[in-house]
């Protein structure tokens, strides 16, 4: 910290006024208001009654997307115009780092739920330990295993014979995503997805080295490869979901196994999609705009951190969702 010079302070760029925040607010609020109403129509609404919720949601998303586009474009232009002092750049670096930390904590909530259910709730529901005393009253006959292939509700003979209120019918899958259930090792998609994502972390690193060597061709090539791997990952994930729904009977309704499986892989997949998009934007900037130099490329570097983060999350997913 002591290295800060006073000139760095004098140049700290404080934008005078900006419409971005208000536009982004309008977009965000319309999006979530619309989305909430779309869901309420779905769950509580009268069938066949049309509402304008979808329209509100899409309008909001459009405004939000356009604002983010304009906002990032402006930030990029300011940097190209040389307005960003080294100190300001450090603010961006810190911002991105702590943002990724917040994402880690978001995933932590879902992993926490997974561990809690697998290690404590499952055995309790099946009658083990002090927590299991209610088993013979509420869930007689329920046996716990992971992946959970029979829900407590099914164990007692369906929603009708269950003693406590609930949100619906939970029908477990007849086939899980575990390795043991794959018909051949090379048909087990998670394995391929792991290979793809791990190598994409390497390719993005090679791209970075290319940039540091001032080798634009190398940068573009390896970054392009990374984006390609990201797209393939998302496609395979989509294929896996299709298989789950169409052939495994594994859905969001399949009890806690389906819930944790889809929420963890789903949020991860969404983050891969975001990361791919971010890297694709950087690729476009490099190819079309010639952006980035060996010592000024935070747009790329931030996106690549995000990419590594998504990769690490996948490693945990692979371990705790698919393997163990």
């Amino acid at each position, binding site marked *: 910290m*002591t290295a*800060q*010079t*006073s000139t760095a*302070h*004098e140049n*700290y760029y*404080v*934008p*005078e*006024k*900006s419409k971005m*925040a*208000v536009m982004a607010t309008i977009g965000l*609020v319309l999006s*979530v*208001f619309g989305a909430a*109403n779309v*869901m*309420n129509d779905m769950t*509580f609404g009268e069938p066949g009654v049309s509402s304008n919720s979808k329209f509100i949601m899409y309008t909001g998303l459009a405004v939000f997307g356009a604002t983010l586009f304009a906002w990032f474009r402006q930030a990029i232009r300011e940097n190209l115009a040389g307005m960003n002092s080294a*100190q*300001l750049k450090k*603010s*961006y670096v*810190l*911002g991105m780092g*702590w*943002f990724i*930390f*917040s994402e880690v904590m*978001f995933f*932590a*909530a*879902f992993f*926490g*739920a997974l561990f*809690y259910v697998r290690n404590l*709730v*499952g055995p309790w*529901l099946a009658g083990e330990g*002090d*927590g299991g005393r209610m088993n013979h009253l509420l869930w007689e006959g329920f046996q716990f295993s992971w992946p959970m292939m029979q*829900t*407590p*509700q099914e164990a007692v003979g369906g929603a009708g014979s*269950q003693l*406590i*209120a*609930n*949100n*619906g019918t*939970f029908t477990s899958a007849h086939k899980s995503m575990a390795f043991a259930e794959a018909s051949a090792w090379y048909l087990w998609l998670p394995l391929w997805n792991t290979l793809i994502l791990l190598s994409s972390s390497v390719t993005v690193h090679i791209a970075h080295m290319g940039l540091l060597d001032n080798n634009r061709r190398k940068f573009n090539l390896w970054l392009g490869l990374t984006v390609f791997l990201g797209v393939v990952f998302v496609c395979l994930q989509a294929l896996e979901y299709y298989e789950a729904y169409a052939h495994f009977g594994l859905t*969001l*309704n399949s*009890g*806690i*196994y389906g*819930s944790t499986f889809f*929420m963890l892989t789903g949020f991860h997949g969404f983050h891969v999609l975001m990361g791919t998009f971010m890297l694709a934007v950087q690729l476009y900037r490099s190819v079309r705009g010639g952006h980035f130099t060996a010592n000024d490329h935070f747009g790329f570097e931030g996106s690549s951190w995000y990419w590594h983060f998504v990769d690490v999350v996948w490693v945990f997913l692979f371990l705790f969702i698919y393997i163990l």
Partner: protein
Amino acid sequence: MGDHHHGPAKGLSRWLFTTNHKDIGTMYLWFSFAMFLLGGTFAMIIRAELFQPGMQLVEPAFFNQMTTLHGLVMVFGAIMPSFVGLANWLIPMMIGAPDMALPRLNNWSFWILPPAFLLLASTLFMEGGAPAAGWTFYAPLSTTYAGPSVTIFIFCIHILGVSSIMGSINIIATVMNMRAPGMSYMKMPLFVWTWLITAFLLVAVMPVLAGAVTMMLMDVHFGTSFFSAAGGGDPVLFQHIFWFFGHPEVYIIILPAFGVVSQIIPAFSRKPLFGYDSMVYATAAIAFLSFIVWAHHMYTVGMPVAGELFFMYATMLIAVPTGVKVFNWITTMWRGALTFETPMLFCIGFLVLFTIGGFTGLMLSIAPADFQYHDSYFVVAHFHYVMVAGAVFSMTAAVYFWLPKWCGKMYNETMGKTHFWISFIAFNVTFFPQHFVGLAGMPRRIPDYSLQFADFNMMSSIGAFVYGASQLLFLYNVIATIVAGKPVSDDKVWDGAEGLEWTVATPAPYHTFEVPPKIDPAHAHF
């Protein structure tokens, strides 16, 4: 572009498009005060219903909506944004920075708040009414039995989370990156320290809350069974996730208050803060411990005994660093040249009443005893001692203390002191009796009660009405100061005040420290 030297823009666009930390701080402060009045109105309805036993004014379902919205609005709308407002105003000035690190993001963090609370308030008019499962919105009340308003509520929480996370990232980046040369970490004013740690807590736990409400959303609309035992989930899982957020959240609320008190008490004791270093370490220790005590809110849900014991001992440990702080504040006053202006009065009120709240917390932390206290008015008394007499009193002290610097005018001291004494007495009249009715078994969140609780409840209600009314006096005093207060001649305002914010002109110019100040190396800390 980037011309720093002209003043604020004219009209509404100044506020909508601003990137200035002082403007944004002002907006946060006024917004949080508006929410304070809204949440206060809900509280008045609760106390009016509880004025006498029997059903008086409102339907039970509406009563539940009032307790729920009161808690949510006060925690997320009044207390948290008020301290963010304070952080915006003060942190750049205290560390010698020209502004917050990411000014546009700063504006966005603020502007998503008002529409979120507008949405939340609008659920009162929805079919089935507003959310009614309490501010802790436990499943299955908030999932299996949820109405459409819960969906809106979930998205509101998401927006509040986004706002808090962005605001906190901004604060962290500012503190880590924008300090004037020579302002090392161990020289920073304690308010900056407590906010840095608070911001860390926020970035760590708001995403967890987002995870919790997302699971609720999925359970309500998409058939998952996170909180439903029939599908292999567990409603108690919700409580674990919620309190993993919720307990750090109570320290998010109180740490900036600690910071404020640590600035004000030395000023009116005319002595440097006693034990600066230990204050910093105590704050960090509290933050660390706050992650491993959450299940003290859940002693009665049927945890394994090992869990009960672990959480009990860990909770009791928190009393140690908290005690360090209380002793340091008292020692700071010891043999100081004390004067008792309004900010100091509120800080002393804080000290006395927060300590009472800390002691009742210690009582509650004893697991076997908590089986008796849990979900009774004793808990209500505990957390109002720490949140109202703790956070709100210190926030009020902060406004009186820095208002002259912000607007260049002095508030009316007599009115300020009157405000303090009415608040202090009315607060105790309201909440002290709640200890007794709680110990005697009156449950919280129920619109009716047994006859033997009648007298104490009537006292509580009268105290609450007076406390509520006294806040209008505060509002009047602040507005009167801004409009027609006596100008302050001295930049320092208070003769004992220390810190960079007192070295700039009064009222503080629109832009401060565009060139970083020289930090006197001889200064041990600020």
